[in-house]
């Protein structure tokens, strides 16, 4: 997290974050680190950046903590209302579009990079990327936050289509760990979640259980 003194007050940010989301056949796997900073101070070392929006739809938050929480709350409202009017579970694409609508309309005031991931009956597991500025694109694999820069190569070389859920979980844990190792602003624990038609499974990998890569 960065500190941006505004009127002399430091704001909590999540920019130095590592978040990612992968699609697999039957669902999605999402992962994030757990560090929130104001400047150099780690305000929360066990942050939960994986936020439920609906029963089978989550978002991964990077950017300003306040901005992303506020947007997520508003989208939860909008999607909850929409879903109960329709009398059926909402589509992931709908949730992603609601995020995009807020992020684009208020692009000048917000700093929010969000990954929307979930499962619905129509298209199965889906990952949508809504980066800063308010673009929307669906990607089978998406990484975000400052820590993501360090793992683009790792993802490009290690992601293969049609992986199983467990392979995805392993890959996500490995990638987030690597990013946390190199990015000063990512750290803490690795939070994972997998979403499928059967529901959501959440997991935490503590610091001492993280896969180790450095040999020195």
């Amino acid at each position: 997290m960065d500190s941006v003194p505004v009127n002399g007050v430091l704001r909590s940010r999540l920019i130095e974050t590592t978040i990612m989301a992968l699609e697999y056949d039957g669902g999605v796997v999402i992962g994030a680190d757990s560090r929130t900073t104001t400047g150099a101070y780690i305000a929360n070392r066990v942050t939960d950046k994986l936020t439920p929006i609906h029963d089978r739809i989550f978002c991964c938050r990077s950017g300003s903590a306040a901005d992303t929480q506020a947007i997520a709350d508003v989208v939860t409202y909008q999607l909850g209302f929409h879903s109960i009017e329709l009398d059926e579970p909402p589509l992931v694409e709908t949730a992603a579009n609601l995020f995009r609508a807020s992020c684009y309309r208020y692009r000048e005031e917000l700093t929010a990079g969000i990954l929307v991931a979930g499962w619905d009956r129509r298209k199965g597991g889906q990952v949508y990327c809504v980066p800063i500025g308010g673009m929307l694109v669906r990607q089978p694999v998406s990484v975000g936050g400052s820590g993501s820069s360090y793992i683009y190569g790792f993802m490009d070389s290690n992601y293969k289509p049609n992986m199983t859920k467990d392979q995805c979980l392993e890959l996500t844990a490995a990638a987030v760990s690597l990013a946390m190792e190199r990015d000063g602003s990512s750290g803490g624990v690795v939070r994972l979640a997998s979403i499928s038609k059967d529901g959501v499974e959440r997991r935490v990998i503590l610091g001492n259980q993280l896969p180790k890569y450095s040999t020195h």
Partner: protein
Amino acid sequence: MDTFCTVYCYAVSRSSPDICSLTRIYYDAGCDDLSFSASNGVVLATEKKQKSILYDEQSVHKVEPITKHIGMVYSGMGPDYRVLVRRARKLAQQYFLVYQEPIPTGQLVQRVASVMQEYTQSGGVRPFGVSLLIAGWDEDQPYLFQSDPSGAYFAWKATAMGKNYVNGKTFLEKRYNNDLELEDAIHTAILTLKESFEGQMTEENIEVGICNEAGFKRLTPAEVKDYLAAIA
């Protein structure tokens, strides 16, 4: 002065006799419905007679969910009901946005009733021609409320509304006790509905909703059929 009086009277007179006659209207023309609070849940049951067999019964519902844990049913004018359902859903979401907590049933009822009251005191509108029954579950307790066109609301253990509400209430008074379980409550609710039902009661012309710790649910026609079979 005259003009003012006329205008004022016009605005008022549009509502006041209407409130009374609306009351009569919904009691006369409305369908029967009733609801029941059991020890571990609430049941809402209503008849849904359509004017023609050509109607697609499953496209329009009387029993509607408002949130995961609150549902409602009405007696009166369908279109007015739709407006209130939408309003209630928005109010519930708004509450969650502010308080990060599912709206307590009583709070929702208060807010919906406020809306209904607004329409008895504003110019150019008429009161809602519906009486609502709102069922919810929070903090391990079942709740049942009624909300009238005037904006008055009441909590009930069991109640009936509509054409034959007098007989319905009498029937319920005899059969209600605090220890009834949800299953028995559903059974009793359907029996009460049958008392004033004209013609054959099938899963297509009644609707049943239940609310317990698992949340609010409108029973599917198949599930209703099972309960009907039990009373046949």
